[in-house]
Every structure is written in structure tokens, then in C-alpha cells.
């Protein structure tokens, strides 16, 4: 199409944008956002009052929490990103999307993924890695749909009529490329069945990959695409030029290069080698300026239009969104300091931090986008500006209550956990540190309810807006000349970045290089080290029964409340036992170090309490630990354990390098049954040992009792129950 002779002025192409795909994604955003917030409110109520778990396995906190996070990130933010990308890219590139069919596959495929997530997560089908809980068939579907999206997008770039690509597009490209890499690497696993797989990595390696993914899901799913949206919608709405082109170049490349290194700040004081931890810290601190570069470029674009912020709700959302982005990206580096992290890690402070990001930065940006796009696309006026303003204030008060209560509760937890007096714990009872913050959980619940109420106002407002749209709308046609081929001529005085902006393929390659550098330098040494895999350890693998229990632990989402990482901090060692070592999780596919302590750490719980204690505690936690907010798990006493699959599980673990002998695998069933009967007999004379030994609870007890420190000098321990 570019072969016309250069002398002739090109004839304009006439074309239309595909706005129906944008409308689809917008409606999906509105719907899924409601689900994500509603589930969040339910979870908040469960923490304030445990009875809201209703003793139902499908809605118990541990299973519902992954649904909340996945819905908020991938369904609410995800659909909004796609709506914004499809809407803005077509206009920025002066072309319709390359293929309507691919766009539609992308849309329906993504909704299918979300529906599968909404079904499988409450059923306990989970890979057990935070923000990547979906099991392997869904993971494959995600990869496929993402690749289709990428193909459609890059082919759209190919047929564009705008020579240079705008900064928003750079951010979209970084998103598309990096999310694909992160998702594929972190989801590598070997299936045991259709609904169960074991992560390819274990222990510290799995942790490193997971948080490289987890942190960069924040970076490349919740930050870069939103910066792209900001760069399009803020100048569009206020009709002001972007403050600084140069700033956008510098902060884009700095952000893309630096973000990828910051993941290990989620693993401070863990058994991750300390040099990698330090890299995580310093790169987090260096992220401050690149993040703020986006914020100030947005805020300074409002120069001369500040009076309009008072009147226009959309601008209010933009300003609050950017401000909360600035706050969260200041808080992030602060939390990454080792000394601050010692206090804040595992506490509610982190929960407050992510919510200022998602409710504030992402949520408000999405609301601005919706209030702008819906009237525009449906060719009508917003039903009520007043309602939108009310939405803004209600949501803002909600966020403030949420963040403040989580700060207070997080710092309270941190201080109580670490508090020492005369070399002893000041609050040795973990429950005491929980009951103390319950009032704050109620405040958080109110914050969440306000945010949800504001959201409902928005739904009403937008539905009324759409209802008022004129019928039989004609699509608008646009015209632009096709791109002419230009000789690659550097002598025109064009800057090299300006040149790069008309070579999206090269820009894409540079983005890949930028994210690869940090990834390779930080992750490869640990992934290739023999120290971190089975070869040099004396640790015995889990027995078949313990492994079965571990899978139930994962299924129930225990990791959403319990960590398994005793940090090398005096108060932790006093509270939990010997600090965690590399070997402890060396066979853990996936690792279960966790990121929260709503309940106590469990890495050393083995042997601390008798079997019957765990039995009673799972049935009714408050009978053993008055004041506990843990849900009841009555179904573990009723469900029969699937003994049949144990051999298969051990075989898969064998392929992953866990040193089970063939004999171990062949005898998995008998061994497990024998161990279960032993535990059953141990419980209480009033409990029928034979009957109870068939139940899932026994496997869970076996697993929990296996969580203990390795004996450092181990020669004659042939008779322990882990005796394989």
C-alpha cells in the first residue's frame, strides 16, 4: 500500500473506528468491577466477623480472597485497560483495529477466562501462587488470548496512518510484551490432572519467580497501561498539551528498565540470597523518580485548567487518581527499606498500600475513563454530573477510611509482633494481636462499603446515560492520508527518539531488552544454582499423606492468612521457633511462604500441638484459641481423602526432581493409609480411628505436623514418621 510514487499527493483513505469492541469492554468493566468490589466487601466483613464465612467452603475467606484479587486486577482493571487501549489506539494510529474478528476473540476469550476463574476459585481449584492462582488449562487460555491480542495490536501498528507513535502506545507495547513474558514463565507447571498441577519451580526459586511476576503484574498490568491511558485521556479531556515530551521519554524508559528489578522487596528477610534482596530494595528506591515522572507530567498538564477541577467530576477523578498514584509510589519505596519492611511485612499496612493503588490510582482512572467514554461512544450526554461528583466524594471518603484503618492496624500488628520486654515477647499470644485490630477491620469494612456505594451510583448514572442514547446511530467516518514510505534518513535533524517513534518494531525490541536485563541478572543465578534444588539437601520429602494434606492446604487458600517463613528476627524466633532455612521449602512446588499473617506463621507449627488439638481447631478454631477469627472447616471432617491419586502425585513430584523412589510412589496408597490410621488412633478414644482416617482432616494434620525445623545433625532418625 505504500508503493505510490512519492511526487503525487496521496489520496485520503476514509475509514471508521471499531467502537463496538470498546463498548463491549466498557460494559464488561462495569459489571466485573461490581463483582470485584462486592467480593472485597464480603471478605472485609469476614475478617471483622468470622461468622460471615457461614461455614460454607465455597465462600470461605481463603477461597474467596483469590477471586477478589483476580477479579479486581484481571477482570475490572483488565477490561478497562482493553477498552481504553482499543479506544485510544485506533485514534492515535488513525486506523481501525487490524481485525474485528481478532478483537472479538480477544473480548469473548477474556470473558471466558474470567468466568472460569469465578467458577474454579471458589471450588478450591488453584495453583496456590498469589495473583496467579488459576490452574493450567486457564493459564494456557490466557496465554492464547493474550497472543491473539498482541498479534491484532502489532498488525494494527503496521496499518497505521500516523507515522509516529505516541507515548501512550509505548506504554501499551511495554504492557503487551512484558505481561506475556511474566505470565508464561510464572505459570510453568506439570499437570497432575485437569484441575491440579505442580509448579515447575520450588522453594526459593519459585518464590523469586512468583514475586518477579507478582510485582511486575503491578508494574505492567496496573501501572504501564494506566499511564498510557492517562497520557491519552487527560490531554483529551482538558484539551491541554502534554507538559513535557522529554519527561515522558525519560520516565518511560526508566520505569520499564527499573521496575522489573524490584520484585525481591516482597522477600526481604526471607531465605532469598541477601544480594538479591538488596537489589530489590535499591531498585525500588530508584523507582520513585520514574513513577513520579508520570504523576507530574499528568498534573502539570492540568496547568491553567485547575479551576475546572472544581466543576468537572472527571477532572476530580484524574487529579485524585494521580495524587494517590504519587502517594502509593512514595509509600512503595518506603516499605521496601529493610528496616521498615521488618515492621510492615505480613501486616495490613501492605493491604492498605495496594488498595491506595488499585482503588485510587486504577479505580479513579477507570471512573474518569468511563464518565468520559460512555457519553462519547453512545453519542449522548452524561445523565448526571451531580451524581458523578457524589460518586467522587463517597469513593474518596471510602478510600481514606480504608487506607487509614489499614495503616493503624498494620503498624499495631507490626509493633505487637516484634515487641520485646526483658528478652521476652510482650504479646506472646498471637490472638491478642488479632483481637486488638478487629475494630479497625470494621472501619475498613465501612470504607469498602462507601466505595461500593459510590460505584453503584456510577452504574446507575451510566445506565441512564446509555438509555438516553439516540437510536440508529450512524458510524462516523474519518479520513487521513495513508503512510508514505520514507527513506531512513538521519540528516533531517530528527532526534533519535523521534526516529524510534516511527519504528515500533525496534521500540518493541528495546522494551524486551530493557525488561530482560533485570530479569536475567536477578533471577538466573538463583534458577541455575544447585544450592536451591534437591541435590545437596538431607531433607526428606513429604510422605504421601503429608503431600495430600499440603494440597488441601493450598486448596483452602491457607496461604492467604498464614505465612511459612520465620524471619531472622529475634521476636520471630521467640514466637515461632528456629528461623526458616533454604531446605525447609526445597520440595515445595509451589512454595507457600505467604505474604500475610492474619493468623500466625506455620513454618514451625509441627509438633507444637498434639494431633487432637489440630483436629478440634480445624473443626472449631475458637474451642482451642478463644478470640480466633479463623473460619471453621467442618467439611474437612466429612470429605473423604482422594487416596487414589497419591501415586500419580508422587510420580509428578519425581519428574520435578523430588527424590521419591519408585517404591515410594508404588506404595503411596498403603503408606498414606497406614500413617492416617496411626494419626486416627492418636486422636481421642471417643473418635473412631478407622472411620476418621479416611477423611481429609487427617492429611491436613499430617502436613501441619511435618512443618518443623530440620534437625541439623541427623544421623540416626530412621524411626521418625517421615521415614522414607
Amino acid at each position, binding site marked *: 500500500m505504500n508503493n505510490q510514487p512519492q511526487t503525487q499527493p496521496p489520496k485520503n*483513505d*476514509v*475509514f*471508521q473506528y*471499531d467502537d463496538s469492541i470498546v463498548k463491549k469492554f466498557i460494559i464488561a468493566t462495569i459489571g466485573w468491577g461490581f463483582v470485584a468490589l462486592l467480593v472485597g466487601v464480603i471478605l472485609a466483613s469476614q475478617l471483622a466477623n468470622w461468622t460471615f464465612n457461614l461455614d460454607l467452603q465455597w465462600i470461605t475467606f481463603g477461597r474467596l480472597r483469590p477471586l477478589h484479587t483476580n477479579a479486581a486486577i484481571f477482570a475490572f482493571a483488565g477490561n478497562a485497560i482493553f477498552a481504553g487501549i482499543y479506544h485510544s489506539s485506533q*485514534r*492515535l494510529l488513525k486506523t*481501525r483495529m487490524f481485525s*474485528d474478528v481478532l478483537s472479538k476473540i480477544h473480548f469473548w476469550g477474556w470473558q471466558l477466562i474470567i468466568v472460569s476463574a469465578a467458577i474454579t476459585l471458589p471450588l478450591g481449584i488453584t495453583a496456590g501462587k498469589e495473583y496467579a492462582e488459576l490452574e493450567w488449562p486457564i493459564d494456557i487460555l490466557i496465554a492464547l488470548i493474550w497472543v491473539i491480542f498482541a498479534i491484532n495490536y502489532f498488525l494494527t501498528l503496521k496499518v497505521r496512518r500516523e507515522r*509516529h507513535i*505516541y507515548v501512550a502506545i509505548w506504554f501499551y507495547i511495554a504492557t503487551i510484551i512484558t505481561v506475556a513474558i511474566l505470565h508464561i514463565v510464572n505459570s510453568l507447571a506439570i499437570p497432575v490432572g485437569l484441575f491440579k498441577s505442580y509448579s515447575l519451580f520450588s522453594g526459593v526459586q519459585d518464590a523469586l519467580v512468583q514475586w518477579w511476576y507478582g510485582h511486575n503484574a503491578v508494574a505492567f498490568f496496573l501501572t504501564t497501561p494506566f499511564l498510557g491511558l492517562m497520557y*491519552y485521556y487527560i*490531554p*483529551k479531556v482538558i*484539551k*491541554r*498539551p*502534554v507538559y*513535557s*515530551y*522529554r*519527561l*515522558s521519554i525519560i520516565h518511560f524508559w*526508566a520505569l520499564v528498565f527499573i521496575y522489573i528489578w524490584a520484585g525481591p522487596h516482597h522477600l526481604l528477610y526471607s531465605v532469598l540470597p*541477601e544480594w538479591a*534482596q538488596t537489589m530489590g530494595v*535499591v531498585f525500588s*528506591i530508584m523507582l*520513585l*523518580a*520514574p513513577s*513520579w515522572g508520570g504523576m*507530574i507530567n499528568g498534573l502539570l498538564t492540568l*496547568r*491553567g485548567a485547575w479551576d475546572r477541577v472544581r466543576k468537572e467530576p472527571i477532572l476530580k477523578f484524574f487529579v485524585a487518581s494521580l495524587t494517590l498514584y504519587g502517594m502509593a509510589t512514595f509509600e512503595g*519505596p518506603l516499605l521496601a527499606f529493610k528496616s521498615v519492611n521488618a515492621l510492615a511485612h505480613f501486616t495490613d499496612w501492605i493491604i492498605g498500600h495496594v488498595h491506595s493503588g488499585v482503588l485510587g490510582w486504577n479505580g479513579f482512572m477507570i471512573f474518569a475513563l468511563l464518565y468520559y467514554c460512555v457519553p462519547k461512544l453512545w453519542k449522548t450526554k452524561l445523565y448526571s454530573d451531580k451524581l458523578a461528583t457524589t460518586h467522587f466524594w463517597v469513593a474518596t471518603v471510602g478510600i481514606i477510611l480504608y487506607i487509614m484503618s489499614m495503616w493503624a492496624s498494620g503498624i499495631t500488628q507490626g509493633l505487637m509482633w516484634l515487641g520485646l520486654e*526483658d*528478652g*521476652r*515477647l510482650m504479646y506472646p499470644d498471637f490472638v491478642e494481636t488479632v483481637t486488638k485490630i478487629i475494630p479497625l477491620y470494621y472501619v475498613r469494612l465501612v470504607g469498602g462499603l462507601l466505595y461500593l456505594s459510590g460505584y453503584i451510583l456510577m452504574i446507575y448514572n451510566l445506565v441512564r446515560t446509555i438509555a438516553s442514547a439516540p437510536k440508529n446511530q450512524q*458510524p462516523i*467516518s*474519518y*479520513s487521513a492520508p495513508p503512510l508514505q514510505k520514507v527513506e531512513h534518513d538521519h540528516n533531517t535533524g530528527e532526534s533519535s527518539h523521534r526516529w524510534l517513534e516511527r519504528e515500533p518494531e525496534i521500540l518493541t525490541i528495546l522494551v524486551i531488552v530493557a525488561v530482560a536485563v533485570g530479569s536475567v541478572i536477578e533471577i538466573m543465578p538463583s534458577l541455575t544454582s544447585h544450592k536451591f534444588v534437591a541435590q545437596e539437601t538431607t531433607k526428606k520429602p513429604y510422605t504421601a499423606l503429608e503431600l495430600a494434606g499440603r494440597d488441601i492446604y493450598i486448596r483452602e487458600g491457607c496461604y492467604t492468612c498464614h505465612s511459612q517463613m520465620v524471619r*531472622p*528476627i*529475634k521476636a520471630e524466633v*521467640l514466637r515461632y521457633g528456629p*528461623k526458616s532455612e533454604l531446605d525447609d521449602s526445597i520440595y515445595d512446588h509451589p512454595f507457600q511462604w505467604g505474604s500475610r499473617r492474619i493468623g500466625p506463621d506455620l513454618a514451625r507449627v509441627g*509438633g*507444637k*500441638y*498434639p494431633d*487432637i*488439638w489440630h483436629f*478440634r481447631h480445624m473443626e472449631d478454631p475458637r*474451642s*482451642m*484459641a*478463644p478470640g480466633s477469627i479463623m473460619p471453621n472447616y467442618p467439611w474437612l471432617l466429612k470429605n473423604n481423602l482422594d487416596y487414589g491419586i497419591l501415586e500419580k502425585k508422587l510420580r509428578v513430584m519425581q519428574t520435578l526432581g523430588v527424590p521419591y523412589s519408585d517404591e515410594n510412589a508404588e506404595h503411596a496408597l498403603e503408606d498414606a493409609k497406614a500413617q492416617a490410621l496411626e494419626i486416627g488412633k492418636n486422636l481421642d478414644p471417643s473418635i473412631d480411628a478407622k472411620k476418621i482416617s479416611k477423611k481429609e482432616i487427617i492429611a491436613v494434620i499430617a502436613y501441619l505436623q511435618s512443618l518443623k525445623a530440620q534437625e541439623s545433625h541427623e544421623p540416626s532418625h530412621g524411626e521418625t514418621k517421615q521415614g522414607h
Partner: protein
Amino acid sequence: MNDNQSNNSNANAKKDIEQNKKAKDSSSIILEDEKDIVLDHNYDGIKELDNPLPKWWVNMFYLTAIFAVVYTGYYHFSSGHLIEDSFQKSMIVEIKEDSDSSTAMASVGFSEEHASIDEGASLYTSRCAACHGQKAEGIIGPNLTDSYWLNGDGTNDSIYNVIKVGIPEKGMISWEKLLNPSQISSLVLYIQSIKGTAPANGKSPQGTLFE
């Protein structure tokens, strides 16, 4: 390639284009002092200014980079600051403390000096009741109100010792690190004070009778 619908109503399309153009011309408000720095960029009406990087922002960036080097140096290139080192140090301090003052007290064992039944009662409810029952009637752990003892002989020193070191093989943890000596003594006093209360649903006697 998606232009097939647009051929039919060219006239209509042109009108739309005109309107569109009008909208675009007014789309960017340029302030007086910005006229010289508007770049020749136009993306769907979006213009860009050639403002320099804010100085304070650039300085902040440099500062964080310098800080990164210093921080890394502090932890990795000067001795004794690694997490493991400071952890070991903090644990050594603890052992010293113990050998000076508090173990001196602990080694005495039971002592009535700072103990009180009231403190013992509240400690009992929060720490012991889960296994021994709210009324010490015995649940997982034995009944503490009768005169039968599984471990030791029911004297103050013996009960003190059981609480202190625990009976790990039966599931009772050592409370030495969680309770200080006077708290353990308070518990002993409380347990002695409820002897013979014979609560309802009491667990039947276990162990040896000591009168």
C-alpha cells in the same frame, strides 16, 4: 481494509469529517508562555510541549541512585550489617541478658515474691484454658483440679517446672520463652488455689495420686 462500509455515503462522511476538523482545531488550549515550546506533534489532537525536565525531579533521581550505591555498600561491603549478622548479634545479647539477671531468677524456680493469684487466673484463661478447660476440668490436657498428677508430684516446684519446660511429647509446649518467672509462679498459685473445685464434666483422674 475495513473501509468497505464507507464507500456508500461519501457525502455524509465528508460532512462528518468537516465537523471533526472543526472540533480538532479548538482541541488544544495553548497558554501564552507556551507558544514557543509547542512541538510539531499532533496525535488525535493531542499536542506536546517541549518543557525541560523539572530540576528537582532530576536531582531526586540522582539522589536515589546515589543512595542505592551507599545502601548496597553499607550492607554488603562493610562488615556486620547483613541480616544474618545482625540476627546473630541480637541472639547473643539475649543469652547474656539471661545469664545475668533473669535466669538467676528463673533458676530459683517457684517464688511467691512477685506472684499473684489474680494474675495467674487471667493468664490461665488466655494460655491454658484451650487445652485444660475454662474450669481446669481437662480437655486435651488433664484435669488440673484433682490430686492426680501425670508429671511431677503436684508441689509448687514441680508444677512450675512442668509449665516451664513443657511436656513436648504430649503436646504441651514449653512456656519458658513466653512467660516470665513471676508469671509462671502466678499460674502455680492459681492452679493450687483451684484444687478440689471438682468442676462439671471433669476429666477422670489420670496419673498418680499425690495427697
